[in-house]
């Protein structure tokens, strides 16, 4: 990605109302320290918890009775759980990418959004992690995918994309926790130094691990942060490539495509950025962060969404093209099925969301319009979810053997589980927003200092 050209003069990533380093700290910490949560907060808290509880019930019922409660059938053996998994882990992509890729490419503006984006990664990957286990027929034995000297003397089957997936999710989640934590330590120290109540001071103090902000500590932390960023970029790409390989390392039409790994990485980035835009809008509005999350941020993110949409469009086109070019009957049949088969309205909706909607961002004014941003982000999130379920439904409904073509339709339990993870995600975010600083204070201070330099 090309470094964003920095304007020679003027501040764009912070508003002039933010004058001092202390202002940054105040803006970010105020909701945690001073203000009590309002009615809106508690309403959202209760609603999301209730939805999560419905999802948890659906999950519990599924585990007790069996995957038969879902829409999955003998042909479309994969359904919502896998689509939800891919979708969630895709959303989890953006946080780490914003933190690492933009850090390495010196996109300083990431400072005010990377913290909540990373938190989003953690929560999204946690939600994603539910599904591969839930999806199993015998969930209680999921650990058989882990290598350990079992009494059966069997080890994981290393050629299976699912084993790669197991490691990818595990490593990605734990890595993201560490990466998040390393970036959080200085801010934890700030919380420790600000908190009123002893209990909270101890809590933050424990996790701040004795951070002083000394030169040596800064130096070490910054070094590690960059080193981890260097690891994170390939890790993120590999995780999503592996998710792509779940499909591509098969022999089914519509799945066995070498474009899948990069296509999944971009798709993940796409949906992840849409989610970041949505969260940024909500946080800015609800937590008074206008001073440090500016329209320039949205402009930049909208451009990334637009770029990703173009790459996605190219990926779709390449699928159609390669089917037409190769003349492979099964591939051609699949493309025909996409446009004319039972799921065509979903496919058209997917194209409208993922290809058409982001084109609005060619207009500079629309890149900063809250309504358009919300609309397009929701469209992209919906469109990417449709894409994931369609990848599964279209290939598995048809495949190679016409004698076993079967359609798929989801059940209430499927939707309840999906909604439940959305509820849990929102709930986790609400808790996060009241416990940890949603923006990285030290990085925003630095951004402010650089902005003031430019301004001067």
């Amino acid at each position, binding site marked *: 990605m090309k470094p964003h050209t920095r304007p020679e003069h003027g501040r764009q990533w912070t508003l002039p109302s933010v004058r001092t*380093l*202390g202002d940054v*700290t105040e803006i970010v910490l105020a909701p945690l320290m001073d203000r009590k949560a309002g009615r809106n907060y508690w309403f959202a808290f209760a609603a999301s918890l209730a939805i999560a509880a419905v999802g948890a019930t659906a999950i519990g019922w599924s585990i007790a009775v069996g995957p038969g409660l879902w829409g999955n059938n003998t042909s479309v053996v994969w359904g919502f759980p896998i689509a939800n998994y891919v979708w969630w882990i895709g959303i989890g992509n953006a946080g780490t990418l914003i933190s690492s890729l933009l850090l390495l490419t010196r996109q300083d503006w990431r400072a005010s959004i990377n913290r909540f984006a990373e938190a989003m990664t953690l929560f999204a990957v946690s939600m994603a992690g539910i599904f591969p286990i839930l999806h199993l027929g015998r969930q209680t034995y999921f650990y058989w995918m882990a*290598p350990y000297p079992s009494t059966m*003397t069997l*080890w994981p*089957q*290393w*050629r299976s994309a699912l*084993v*790669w997936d197991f*490691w*990818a999710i*595990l*490593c*990605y989640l*734990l*890595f993201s926790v*560490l*990466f998040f*934590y*390393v970036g959080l*330590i*200085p801010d934890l*120290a700030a919380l*420790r*130094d*600000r908190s009123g109540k002893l209990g909270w001071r101890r809590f933050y*103090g*424990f996790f701040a*691990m*004795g*951070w*002083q*902000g*000394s*030169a*040596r*500590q*800064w*130096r*070490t*932390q910054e*070094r*590690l942060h960059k*080193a*981890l960023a260097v*690891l*994170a970029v*390939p*890790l993120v790409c*590999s*995780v999503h490539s*592996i998710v792509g*390989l779940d499909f591509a390392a098969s022999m089914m039409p519509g799945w066995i495509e070498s474009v899948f790994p990069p296509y999944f990485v971009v798709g993940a980035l796409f949906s992840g950025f849409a989610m970041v835009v949505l969260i940024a809008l909500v946080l800015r509005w609800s937590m008074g962060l206008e001073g440090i999350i500016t329209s320039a941020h949205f402009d930049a993110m909208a451009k990334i969404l637009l770029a990703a949409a173009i790459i996605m469009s190219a990926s779709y086109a390449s699928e159609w093209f390669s089917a037409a070019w190769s003349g492979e009957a099964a591939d051609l049949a699949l493309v025909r099925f996409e446009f004319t088969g039972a799921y065509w309205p979903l496919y058209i909706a997917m194209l409208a969301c993922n290809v058409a909607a982001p084109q609005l961002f060619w207009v500079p004014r629309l890149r900063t319009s809250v309504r358009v941003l919300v609309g397009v982000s929701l469209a992209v999130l919906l469109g990417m979810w449709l894409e994931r379920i369609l990848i599964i439904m279209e290939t598995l409904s048809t495949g190679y053997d016409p004698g076993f073509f079967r359609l798929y339709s989801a059940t209430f339990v499927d939707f309840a589980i999906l909604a439940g993870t959305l509820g849990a995600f929102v709930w986790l975010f609400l808790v996060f927003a009241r416990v940890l600083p949603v923006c990285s*204070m*030290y990085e925003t*201070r*630095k951004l402010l*200092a650089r902005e003031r330099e430019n301004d001067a």
Partner: protein
Amino acid sequence: MSRLAIALFDDEGPFVRASTRALARDFRILGQWGPYPLEIFEDHGDTRAIVWAVAITGILGAAAMFALATFSTYAYPFDSGGRPLFTWQTFLIPSTEFLALTGAIGGVIALFIKAGLTRLHHRAFDLAEVERASRDSFVLALACDTGDSANAAVALLAEAGAFHTRVVE
């Protein structure tokens, strides 16, 4: 017990100026604290060890994973779709993932060691000014052997732009 002169700066410019001048005047900098990292912090010790720690633990982790995959394939050999036993290409995939995880773990441990973290009690915390570093200010502490040098130090710091100075006995 020697004294030290401590000062607070609300901007990195004066702080850097004060640090540079203090060094030029042969003051020993006891400590620098800041609300965000600065390039001049680089003088404080070699931190390349962090990168080495990440690299070595990462590579060790990857190698261990690869070895595990190879071992387990031969420990219980079976025919899986006519694939060869030693399918190293596929072994590389979990190894790569594991590289990142173990590298990060190694790096965090190195961070704790090199940055002296997990020390919840440190002498610096006795200085009220240090707390400001987590909020909005740069803090500079200079070692002074005598009262005169302390005064000189304070003067230097104030002149460089400190908004608050103090001599700690």
